[in-house]
């Protein structure tokens, strides 16, 4: 576990020593503050639209950070050849995969904490209340979803060696899975065979990331899902991420690395 932890700390250090995170944080802050400073019909008590804009920016920023960080990990280790001194130590490739995953996921978590602190200040200033428990649930579910996304990007990175196409593909897959995925079941009913069965199977196979997006519930002041449902969703994400990591390892362990 020491090795996995050591690898993950390098990933975290890398993220916070690059400029991406700060650029996204500043951009999110500026855009939200700009949206907050806008006056619509001289109305200064509007809060839902502001919450929506800020949460959307947080989702986009964390997805960008999660996907781009995970997509470049193994390819950049190969390209910069830092993988060689690392694998020359008593380190298994499974530990590399796990360490990279843990590092990216933890980095996303730290990013989310920073973003949500800003969000909390914003909401607190407008509504004069701070629903900490709701924030925690919202953030936890987003972080859990990012775990699956990071695992997916890592799998992509051992299949496609270039981080750019991998990150783009991951974005498309994640957006498709989130927005179209939940409806594939309904769509499949209206299709002829075998397309119907095929689509229905895809609907079962894809990760259901839409469960983790509680923004609408939070923004519209609805009751957030219960702890049991969140726990089950976390378990599902953990199982899915593990599956993706095992596939990543299975592909990575067979790859020859020539110095």
């Amino acid at each position, binding site marked *: 576990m020491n090795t996995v932890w050591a690898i993950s700390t390098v990933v975290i250090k890398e993220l916070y020593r690059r400029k991406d995170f700060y650029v996204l944080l500043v951009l999110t802050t500026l855009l939200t503050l700009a949206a907050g400073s*806008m006056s*619509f*019909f*001289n*109305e200064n*008590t*509007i*809060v*839902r*639209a502001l919450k929506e804009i800020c949460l959307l920016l947080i989702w986009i920023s964390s997805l960008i950070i999660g996907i781009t960080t995970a997509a470049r990990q193994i390819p950049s280790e190969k390209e910069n050849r830092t993988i060689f001194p690392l694998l020359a130590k008593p380190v298994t490739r499974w530990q590399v995969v796990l360490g990279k995953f843990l590092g990216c996921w933890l980095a996303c978590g730290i990013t989310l904490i920073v973003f949500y602190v800003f969000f909390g200040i914003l909401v607190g200033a407008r509504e004069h209340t701070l629903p900490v428990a709701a924030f925690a649930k919202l953030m936890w579910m987003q972080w859990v979803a990012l775990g699956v996304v990071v695992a997916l990007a890592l799998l992509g990175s051992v299949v496609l060696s270039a981080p750019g196409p991998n990150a783009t593909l991951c974005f498309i897959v994640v957006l498709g899975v989130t927005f179209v995925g*939940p*409806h594939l*079941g*309904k*769509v499949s009913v*209206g299709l002829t065979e075998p397309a119907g069965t095929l689509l229905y199977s895809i*609907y*079962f196979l894809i990760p*259901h990331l*839409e*469960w*983790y*997006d*509680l923004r*609408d*519930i939070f*923004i*519209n*002041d*609805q009751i957030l*899902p*219960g702890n049991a*449902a969140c726990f*089950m*969703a976390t378990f599902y994400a953990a199982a899915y991420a593990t599956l993706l990591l095992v596939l990543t390892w299975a592909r990575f362990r067979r790859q020859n690395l020539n110095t």
Partner: protein
Amino acid sequence: MHASPKWIVALLATLSVSLATLLAPTAQQRSEKRGTDGFLKIMLGDGRRLFAKHFFTKADIYFHSGYYPSIFDQANQANQKAITHADEDDHHDGKEDHDAHHHEDHDADHEEGMDFVKEPRDWIERFGRNFTINQHTHLAEGKQREMLPWLRIAAEMDPQMVTTYTTASYWLRKEKNRVGEARQFLLEGLRNNPKSDELLFELGSLYYNDMADTNRARNVMTSALSAWFARPSQSKTNNEAISLLGRIAVNLARIERDSGNYVEAIRYFELGKTVSPTPEGIQAQIDQLRQNTFSNDVQNIRK
């Protein structure tokens, strides 16, 4: 001879400022010629109409507290049953299945239209219900203002989308202290759509109902009626157009009635009756007015 860097910097700064002062008026003239289109309009081109539609729907989603059928649910419903949405009130234009200007008194059609939560078909859907909004409530207690930003943005994106102005002005008028903003927004809409009978009607209603300015209301409503008759003949025959004509006529009739011009009022009621789905009600008002006219005439003769 060695030039000091300080002097070079000072010289270049002076040169830049001089050039800027020379070029600024020319640039301003050019930008005025280009018109006042905002950055987003230039960037998005015609695609902004799609965004306008999206933001308008967003406002409606807020109104329904997040409860909203997706395009997939709507497609399913369309397959199962053709859902027709009757006008919910006299402000409803009927263009949207779920537009943002609902009253509290929703009719059964609306409730049915929003009822997309059917029996779950599999475990994914059943479990997913924990994370989706299944409650259909409406914004109340002044929280309707939460919709306004999206309507404002929708209008920015597509100034020709008349529904945005009418919807926003309706909600602004609901709060009495926002009548001024509602009027401003409708005037903005009219600047962008000068021939819109809907906007003229909405503005006339505002003058009549919220500002009690009968003269202005009459003028604007009359313009609305003229605008309606100036429509191309093919766009006069649909239900929306007929409904609008009825509302303009009835409102004009009320304005005239309140001003004591009963003959004019009867004329407009007669017009309204020809297009109204409930002509009996209008006929009753005409009869009442005729009665009043008769009484007035009798009183005048006695005098």
